[in-house]
């Protein structure tokens, strides 16, 4: 099932709503990288609240999304990683490396706002 991408002012919000196949994730990656240019977005939020498994492929693809979006000049934040999913990722040794994460959508938006303020100040 394709992930809907919502445009909200300067940001794109992708809310993963159900179980996701590998193909859906790759599709999401390509769509976000494309739309960040189309809408001249400054930030992307990927909400994974309803994902109950985040395995090595999903971790790698989320990282790829963040790096590709960064190369396009915008910021990415992953929000909503559930406690059990965080536990499984740590046990498996999966990491998102330096990709920004936040508790939920609200915190994710606050993070992006902060990032763009810093950007405007040239910090």
């Amino acid at each position, binding site marked *: 099932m394709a992930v809907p991408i919502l445009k909200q002012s300067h940001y794109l919000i992708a809310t993963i709503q159900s179980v996701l196949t590998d193909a859906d994730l790759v599709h999401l990656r390509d769509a976000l990288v494309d739309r960040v240019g189309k809408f001249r977005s400054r930030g992307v939020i990927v909400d994974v609240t309803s994902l109950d498994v985040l395995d090595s492929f999903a971790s790698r693809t989320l990282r790829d999304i963040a790096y590709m979006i960064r190369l396009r000049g915008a910021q990415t934040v992953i929000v909503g990683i559930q406690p*059990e999913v965080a536990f499984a990722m740590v046990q498996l040794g999966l990491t998102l490396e330096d990709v920004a994460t936040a508790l939920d959508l609200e915190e994710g938006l606050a993070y992006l706002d902060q990032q763009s303020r810093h950007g405007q100040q040239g910090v």
Partner: protein
Amino acid sequence: MASKASEPKKEVRVPVSSDNDLVTARREGRFMAEQLGLSSSEATLVATAISELARNIVSYARNGEIHICLINNGVRRGITIVARDEGPGIADTKLAVQAGYSTSGGLGLGLPGVRRIMDEFEINSEPGRGTTITITKWTRR
């Protein structure tokens, strides 16, 4: 004891040949793990392990099967997952379960990670003869 209609499923087989099947295998695995009485965290570990094994089947062998069963060895109850394929096989199974090893440009976390999060892990493979990986998680107590 006579079997009842409401008796939980003891085993399920999921044919695996596309990434859609990964979703089914994960879901069945979580369901069985919860039926066994594993915690939500442990059920997530089981579902994640299944995801890794099923993805290996799709990536390397194209076709295979995930067989999930609830077991009881007289002392403990557990969940065993057998991932079987008739793909190219693995020449060096010792190497394949070492951290950092990957032939597919992946992270090399698949098999070593799965071995770490399960209580038991066994791999049987021969080049040209396919691969069978058996993993088990026991309930506590």
